[in-house]
């Protein structure tokens, strides 16, 4: 990328973010409802904390006491809240109703606008999310978990989670080029990430065989991995492997997304909307 191009990309992104932060402000009520809906990990946390009242819960070499569950599910809360996606809806509507056409006429990849729309929303709700997150850790007596190194690594893994979530949702949304029910697939991503990713049960509490499979899937990479980082029990090897898995999934999914987009666009250009 040339310097001039880079400057152009930065300028466009700055303006896109300004625009979508402004849009997010317009939808304050919707954001508040979403944030309330995102309290499920906290409810699950309360159940696990209660279950661990008499002692740690162990399995397959892993052990979680009350504090561990509190930290883990507060991490789940932040991951879920920071990765709220509606790109399936945008793409389904854009492709089937032809709303994608005006975006295709601009000398800018349409995905920039779609990404910025999500990021604008997150930027606007981030202060509240962080406040709830810190308050949750404080009330459960686990605020000490937020060391500088932990927080930085957790933040990086959160960015990785966002990119994996975004690419999965985008790939599913792009299926609208071929099918009419792409939107109906969206809840599946949610179920998979909750059940298989550690949203309900930490992955290392699953039976060994299932755990070994799950840790290689993107759902654990985007949910369980940031949770493990915040717990601070992860060793350097597991940390590096986790980061490598995140990067791997981002690359694989981004490649998949690009290929689906190209094939879909070819179809869109062939049949129109």
């Amino acid at each position, binding site marked *: 990328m040339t310097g001039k191009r880079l400057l152009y990309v930065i300028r466009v992104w700055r303006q896109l973010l300004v*625009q979508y932060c402004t849009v997010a402000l*317009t939808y304050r009520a919707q954001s508040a409802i979403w944030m309330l809906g995102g309290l499920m990990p906290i409810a699950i946390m309360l159940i696990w904390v209660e279950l661990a009242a008499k002692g740690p819960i162990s399995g397959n070499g892993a052990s979680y006491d009350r504090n561990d569950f509190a930290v883990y599910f507060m991490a789940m809360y932040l991951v879920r809240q920071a990765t709220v996606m509606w790109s399936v809806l945008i793409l389904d509507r854009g492709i089937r109703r032809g709303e994608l056409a005006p975006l295709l006429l601009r*000398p800018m990849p349409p995905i920039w606008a779609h990404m910025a729309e999500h990021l604008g929303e997150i930027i606007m709700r981030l202060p509240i999310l962080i406040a709830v997150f810190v308050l949750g850790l404080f009330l459960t007596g686990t605020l000490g978990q937020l060391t500088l190194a932990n927080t930085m690594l957790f933040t990086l893994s959160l960015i990785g989670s966002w990119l994996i979530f975004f690419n999965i949702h985008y790939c599913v949304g792009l299926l609208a080029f071929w099918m009419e029910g792409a939107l109906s697939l969206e809840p599946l991503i949610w179920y998979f990430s909750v059940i298989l990713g550690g949203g309900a049960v930490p992955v290392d509490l699953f039976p060994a065989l299932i755990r070994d499979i799950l840790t290689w899937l993107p759902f654990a990479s985007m949910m369980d991995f940031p949770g493990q980082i915040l717990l601070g029990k992860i060793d350097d090897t597991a940390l590096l492997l986790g980061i490598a898995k995140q990067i791997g999934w981002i690359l694989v999914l981004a490649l998949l997304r690009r290929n689906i987009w190209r094939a879909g666009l070819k179809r869109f250009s062939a049949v129109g909307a």
Partner: protein
Amino acid sequence: MSAVIAVRGLRKEYKVHHKEGGFLGSLKSLVNRRYATVTAVDDVSFEIAEGEIVGFLGPNGAGKTTTLKMLSGLLHPSGGDVSVLNFEPKQRQSAFLRSITLVMGQKQQLAWDLAAVDSFLLNRVIYEIPEDVYRRRLGELSEMLSLQPVLNKPVRKLSLGERMKCELALALLHQPKVLFLDEPTIGLDVNMQRAVRDFIAAYNDRYRATIMLTSHYMDDVEALARRVMVIDGGRIAFDGDLNRLIAEQTPKKVLRLKLATAQPAERLRQYAELRRLDDLEAELLVERHRVPDTASRLLADLPIADIAIEEQPIEDVIGALFKNSPGKPAAAAGLTTNAAS
């Protein structure tokens, strides 16, 4: 004059899923999916020179929007060659996209929840318009379209006409050399239609932009385009001067009479075909070469307060053209004037 738009043998075929109606039809289509090939644009060729405004007319489903989408790169042709400003539109190169615009009356670019000016600011950055140029152009567009009072209002709160004017201004902010306007006045009231028409004419005049315009409002076409292309069933049925089209398609003119005293229909029919009789007002259809003679006889024989000789309304002309195509009733043309819309 060199052609800005050159189209040769353009064709577009769609594969359409064929399904019978009702639940049984849906079940059948699950087991046995049937497809039919529909030719939306068939062997279309034309050239448009720099600065020309061409009215692109046709009934619903004739292939107008499909053609415009192929010219703007949104659709890939099934066959033929297209060149717009020496670009192949389907490549959608950045330089091409920066030189054209496609305004679709029923699809919007403006961000719904923001003020219109926010969308302008975004396009300024996307199209890399320098700040001073942006201010000047926005000023010009605001002046030409009287946008100032609405620029800072949320788009969702604008009237349809205000929104359409903002859409037009947004689409022209990067000063495209080629404009594809698909029903730019759809749904607008008469005054707003006129404002948009005046603006398009002024833009063409000021920047020598090449414009292809589709509209169901014949007033748009009459006011803006000297040349019209009529597409029907995916094929060009006429391409040429609007006046020639009128002369070719309507061998008769309209004699509009204001009578001093009411006359029976039979009496008026002695002179020519009676198109309308409404108390003291009548309209006769007279062959072009007999107009002077018939008008003199009418003035001599009948108590006439006023007489006017007019061409037939343009929608009748186009309707007549479609009528000549088998299986295409004039009503399908869906052409309206302001009075009818």
